[in-house]
């Protein structure tokens, strides 16, 4: 347990500082390799468009991982996240340019639970659209 945020210091309703995470085609290629998910819609524009997508899209799990990283970084320990769930409401479209896309993550302390657990309500947006909804992370703090 290395979380740096103390349970006693956390106030329900507190807003966490928002963060922006860039995502480029190279990030998706790396994620394909690391995860083993080589679905062509995450790297092949021709096929992505042929199945009705606007362009190559990020893996839902890549997007979820950015929200997970956000909660982990806030707590100071990836192992502090004991429950984590999301609904994928919209894809993150990643254009083939040097800039790529941006995933903006923000969070609020929704509730304090027994057992030094804190519920974070997370929101992730890309290009103005919510890409994760019902995103909740339960974090155990010292």
């Amino acid at each position, binding site marked *: 347990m290395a979380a740096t945020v103390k349970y006693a210091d956390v106030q329900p309703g507190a807003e966490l500082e928002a963060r922006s995470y860039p995502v480029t085609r190279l990030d998706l290629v790396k994620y394909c390799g690391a*995860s083993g998910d080589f679905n062509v819609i995450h790297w092949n524009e021709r096929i992505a468009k042929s199945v009705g997508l606007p362009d190559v899209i990020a893996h839902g799990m890549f997007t979820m991982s*950015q929200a*997970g990283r956000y909660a982990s970084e806030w707590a100071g320990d990836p192992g502090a996240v004991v429950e984590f769930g999301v609904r994928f409401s919209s894809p993150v479209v990643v254009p083939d340019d040097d800039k790529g896309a941006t995933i903006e993550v923000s969070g609020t302390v929704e509730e304090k639970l027994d057992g030094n657990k804190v519920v974070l309500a997370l929101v992730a947006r890309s290009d103005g659209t919510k890409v994760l909804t019902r995103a909740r992370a339960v974090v155990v703090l010292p």
Partner: protein
Amino acid sequence: MALNRDYIGRSFPPSEPYEVSRVKIAEFANAIGDPSPLCRDREAAQAAGYPDVIAPPTFAIVITMASSSHAVLDEDLGLDYSMVVHGEQRFEYARPLHAGDVVVAQSTITDIRNAGRNVMLTTRTDIKTTGGEHVCTALSALVERGGAA
């Protein structure tokens, strides 16, 4: 083709044992941009009370996918994988996965239901060590676009 509802409740055989390695954890952490030293530096992880470097919370998907793909790619289920998108995902951890863990994953199809024009298929995957210690439960919802049309 409609999904075969007989598969609701069906469990699939446990996966081959998966050995969680430091290299794979670091590769995954790099790929998602998680900067935590606890995912890379064994001494830092041990100083934080873990046996070895720990995996980020979404790492379990690597193990889950290998197991649940047996289920969702079963021909008799009738899933058109080219029309599948990820609907929901949830992880519940008894403790973080760490390097040196040897785990098996077992998946069950918990529900198949129509949602408008789409079909939603939900799975539960339990990840345990080969010693039987429960580490993580992963709950997934896959959406087959147009599957109920």
